[in-house]
């Protein structure tokens, strides 16, 4: 077990080191997240209370798209010079490799979620009432997006129609997170969390508890048939 943790640490450190030298993942996610919020602010040109009530939805749409981009980018880098194959040969368990990618993607996704919330507060005049619960919601949502996204991004990295097929496949699967995330966030950017909000949070937690280990488990079965 500690061997796997060690390998995990090595792989994550490698990704972060590369990212620091060549911020292909974080920079593109940053720009994209900002653009999405800005476009929304222009799309809803009159910012009134009604539009403010949509802000939870905006946050989650922006996050969904940004995480989709991020998970793709995290694997793009591995396609050069067959690095992914090299890593697969050199790691004991492909699950560890997958986990490292999913964690890195989630990490950047979470950073972006902070940015998105900040921008939404700025552009739409929304106010955050329960920052800790909001963070919990974002953590659950973003990790869910990124693990499912990482599974299919990693597998489809070499497919020609990846850009189209990837969102087509992952979006419907993560809809429960979007619904629950919006429902919970509505209370956090609004009055405050109540019993109903906890129920939605529990749904997100349950979703993650199923899909995070699920994707990790499934990965090798798919990986071994890579062409």
């Amino acid at each position: 077990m500690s061997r796997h943790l060690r390998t995990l640490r090595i792989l994550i450190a490698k990704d972060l080191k590369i990212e620091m030298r060549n911020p292909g993942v974080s920079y593109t996610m940053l720009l994209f997240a900002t653009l999405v919020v800005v476009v929304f602010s222009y799309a809803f040109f009159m910012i009134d209370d009604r539009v403010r009530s949509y802000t939870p939805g905006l946050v989650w749409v922006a996050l969904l798209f940004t995480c989709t981009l991020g998970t793709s980018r995290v694997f793009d880098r591995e396609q050069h010079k067959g690095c992914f194959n090299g890593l697969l040969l050199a790691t004991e368990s492909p699950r560890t490799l997958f986990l490292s990618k999913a964690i890195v993607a989630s990490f950047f996704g979470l950073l972006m979620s902070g940015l998105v919330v900040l921008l939404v507060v700025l552009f739409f005049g929304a106010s955050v009432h329960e920052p800790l619960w909001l963070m919990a919601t974002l953590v659950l949502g973003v990790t869910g997006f990124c693990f499912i996204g990482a599974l299919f991004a990693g597998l489809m990295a070499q497919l020609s129609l990846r850009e189209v097929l990837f969102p087509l496949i992952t979006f419907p699967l993560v809809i429960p997170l979007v619904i629950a995330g919006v429902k919970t966030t509505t209370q956090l950017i609004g009055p405050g969390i109540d019993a109903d909000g906890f129920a939605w949070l529990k749904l997100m937690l349950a979703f993650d508890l199923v899909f995070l280990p699920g994707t990790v488990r499934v990965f090798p079965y798919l990986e071994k048939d890579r062409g």
Partner: protein
Amino acid sequence: MPEGIRLKGLTQTFGRRRILRGLSGHFEPGRLHLIVGPNGCGKTTLLRVMSGQLSLEAGTLQFHEECVEAGQSLPWSIRRRLGVLGHDSFLYSELSARENLDLYRKLYGLPKERVGEALERVSLGSAADQPVGCYSQGMEQRAAFARVLMQDPDYLILDEPDAGLDEAGRTRVEEELSSFVRDGKVVIAVTHHPESFQGLNRQILRLEKGVLVSVGGDQ
């Protein structure tokens, strides 16, 4: 390692073409096995199957005593002793050769000194600390070779190790491969120039119509 690598009944289909047809072969340790054949006959496919990058459709692979059946992936016990050098260098452009080697060293669990030693042997010099993205093709190949040297695998699979190298480069490759052969490892290389590896204990195999045919060699 008396057994080496044994292939039995390897079959691989690519789309609609059957590239490998019940291919069998035996790669003994302490010999340099050169695979020749025209482009597109399946040499790269064969190497990819043997190195576990492609999943085996039918047949068995045997590495010494460990057997791999169709549909199974290569177990770690084999992979860690498998050195692969293909058209891809497996090196990250943003990291230096030293950092790349250090990464693989940690993944394979090897001691620190190996990195420096391997880089010495391929004479990358100060370029070893430059990002691989700045390297010329020859330098990148040397760095990739260093990665394999550092690993010191028992089974070495190379796809055209002499491609794109100048005279000096080729000589170096021959020297390194001969030391592997002398150490009793299994060395398999696809090449278009079998004549250049004179003096090593060679077996030349031709990949024809999806099977391997022995066409010559030493003793």
